[in-house]
């Protein structure tokens, strides 16, 4: 019952967030450029422009226009791209697989490498390997993504000539989805961009896990577990790790959203044909429908991930589900 009302509340909040983002996206249409002059040639008469505006509903009152925009957005209809003259939804559907593959691989990489590294550096605090992890992570956290990308291209693409430095390589079409994961050249093309994109998140997760774990290791229940004679592995992984992960989950959730956002830069550096590239081009050419659609999509991803994190939280931490965590005293 409690879980249910919690979910309803969160869904309602998510809806509000999406609505406000929709408002901002819609405001783009109103204030960034004039859609009519973007669509028609210079020799169109004022009367024709007026007719077009009427037909496109641009003369309707503001709330009506907003409502129509929401109605369209809800089913993925953002109108025609000014530049490509095709539906925005179609453009996004073509580009989405590239970005999603890149983002998901990077996210998996940062979680499954970052967490074990964090645990290791917390347990063997003084070890040589831990110290070198910490030093390398400092580089990962302080160098900007594009610079790392360029350095990678220089090292692995130009000097060593091991890996391709641009594009997706060969892709395979499965239904509406194009994937680079099934061909050798596709996988090779994925390595540099995904590592570049993952590096920042990976080091962040590693440092976060390390700090949390060190804190958990000083708690009374860990000391009590040791006093009961439990083996080191049982203490570290059975008791400490799970308690470490609770605050880490929130950050990971937020960071996964950021991976999508950071993808813009990585895609530009590696000429990756994804949504990030599409967005950059859209900005250059004031292609408002594409910008609005991209904005809505990213916010949808953020909201969905956060909702998932909240639900996951309730599963991991029993204190949240049973009495709403509202214990006094």
């Amino acid at each position: 019952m409690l879980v249910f009302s919690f979910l309803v509340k969160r869904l309602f909040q998510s809806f509000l967030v999406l609505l406000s983002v929709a408002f901002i996206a819609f405001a783009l249409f109103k204030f960034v450029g004039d859609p009519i002059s973007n669509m028609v040639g210079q020799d169109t008469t004022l009367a024709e422009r007026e007719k077009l505006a009427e037909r496109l509903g641009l003369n309707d009152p503001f709330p009506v226009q907003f409502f129509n925009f929401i109605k369209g957005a809800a089913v993925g209809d953002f109108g025609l791209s000014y530049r490509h003259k095709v539906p925005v939804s179609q453009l996004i559907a073509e580009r989405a697989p590239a970005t999603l593959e890149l983002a998901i691989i990077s996210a998996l990489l940062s979680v499954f490498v970052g967490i074990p590294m964090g645990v290791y550096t917390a347990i063997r605090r003084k070890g040589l390997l831990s110290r070198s992890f910490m030093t390398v992570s400092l580089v990962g956290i302080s160098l900007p993504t594009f610079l790392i990308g360029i350095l990678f291209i220089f090292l692995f693409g130009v000097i060593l000539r091991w890996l391709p430095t641009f594009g997706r390589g060969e892709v395979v079409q499965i239904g509406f989805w194009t994937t680079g994961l099934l061909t050798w050249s596709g996988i090779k093309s994925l390595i540099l961009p995904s590592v570049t994109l993952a590096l920042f998140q990976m080091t962040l997760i590693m440092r976060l896990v390390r700090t949390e774990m060190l804190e958990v290791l000083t708690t009374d229940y860990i000391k009590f577990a040791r006093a009961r004679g439990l083996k080191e592995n049982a203490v570290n992984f059975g008791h400490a790790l799970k308690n470490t992960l609770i605050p880490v989950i929130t950050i990971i959730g937020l960071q996964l959203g950021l991976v999508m956002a950071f993808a813009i830069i990585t895609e530009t550096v590696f000429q990756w044909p994804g949504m990030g590239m599409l967005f950059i081009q859209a900005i250059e050419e004031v292609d408002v429908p594409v910008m609005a659609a991209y904005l809505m999509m990213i916010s949808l991803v953020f909201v969905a991930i956060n909702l998932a994190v909240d639900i996951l939280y309730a599963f991991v931490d029993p204190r949240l589900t049973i009495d709403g965590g509202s214990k006094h005293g």
Partner: protein
Amino acid sequence: MALLDVKNISIGFPSRHGMFVAVKDVSLSVEPGEILGVVGESGAGKSTIGNAIIALLEPPGEVIKGEVYLNGARIDNLSAEEKRLIRGKKIGMIFQDPQTSLDPLKTIRQQLVETIDLHLRLGRKGSEKRALELLEQVGIPDPVTRMQHYPHQFSGGMRQRVVIALALCGEPELIIADEPTTALDVSVQKQILDLMRKLCVDKNVGMILVTHDMGVIAEVADRVAVMYNSQLMEIGETAQIIGNPQHEYTKSLISAIPRPDKKVRRFPLVTYIEDVVEQKDEFDVSTHWLGQSREFDMKVADDGTILQLEDLGMRFQITNSLFKSKRRYLDAVKDVNFSIKEGETFGIVGESGSGKSTIARMVTGLYTPYKGKVNFLGKEISAISHTPEVLPYRRQMQMVFQDPFSSLNARMRVLDIVAEPILFHKLAESKAEAEHIVMDLLKLVGMSDDAYAKYPHQFSGGQRQRISIARALATRPRFLICDEPTSALDVSVQAQILNLLKDLQEELNLTMMFISHDLPVIRQMCDRVAVMQHGQVLELAETENLFENPQHEYSQHLLSLMPRLDMLQA
């Protein structure tokens, strides 16, 4: 042969400034079925001995000298893995705070089964059966259901029972209990102590009970070891140590314990304690700054009432809901009525959650009452609590908090801390004058001359509480609220602070509201006492009447739980 034999052990913590020796040349032994109390004040090294025996010293701590024998076999020189095999199996440990000593993310069953299976190799089914038996032994009702629960679903006392069950999983021969009842209410403390005593007798387990509380020692220990300043002062039968202490330190420690059985005017001066400048010169209110402008324009009522509470109530919302009928509230304080007369010390006693601190917060305006009135000096201050009008009244009323570590701003010098209220209420003409007043106040509460320029972290708990008192006095109040002012302090320091409060009250004719869960302290400090439970005042009586002849059932119950020090010399 003794179960445990500790011979001339010294424990050190290496640091940049050389070796800090936490325990020096201590020898003690424990027989099967015996409870050895280790008593001492904070920093005496008593917990360190327990940690060394079970080989859980916080790094970089190490045993630098001496030997530890368990059943005649030496255990302090074993390898890390061999030491782990002893932990839980031969020696169990119980920690102070049951709120934090259980893994919050695992059910009681998971934690029990894991430990039992590790030590006794009973398999899943067998371990579960054994876990049920253990929970029954430590007195957890309905263990089959309770086993599925998480630690946060248990109360403090029940959690400590679970901790004890966990410590018993490997059927150890020796249990080290480090302040096992300090975080618990007195009624729960009694139950836990009874349980531990029973387990020792039934299972013939030896126990080392580390505590700062002589009452606990008197209740259960067979023998006592007294620690002071890393060294063992005295060891002997409990009755002898408490009734006829030999060592000077033990004598002064015992004399500092508030007596539950009769009221004394002052605590005898405690030697062997930290440096305090005792107020030597005669204090004259008529000439001192604190005595000036005590001709208040706010007069006390003719019958001497300074504070009066009328049907005071406070409720907190515990479940929020869109629907009014579904919201749940906790009535922390319910219809409380009492009045305090000028110059008296009014005590409020009760267990945690009884609402005693909530009253203090409503009186000082930190909480806005849900219903009822607070009348102070004839004015209903609860009605004007957020207006500037209330300031002159607030100035007359100050508070001393429980925790001297968090109630002083760590980033401010003592001078600024004490001067702040003076400057805020514009009680001094200039900053220089305020500084002069601060120096005077610090001297009054027994701080040394150079204290003003230091920061709070440079002082001990007792000294910090003196600074808190100086800050409270800085507005020349006539009403002081003390919320558990000594419960975070060692007993000898407590005696000093209580003496200081008594002296100040006498000299300045202060009125005090004194909140405590500690009945002996209440008896020593208060003229009248209100006994509270579940937000209600159950009994209000003269202190002596309450202690000699309690009327309400709950008061009788509380008094019966008070640890007795019958062995004390009259």
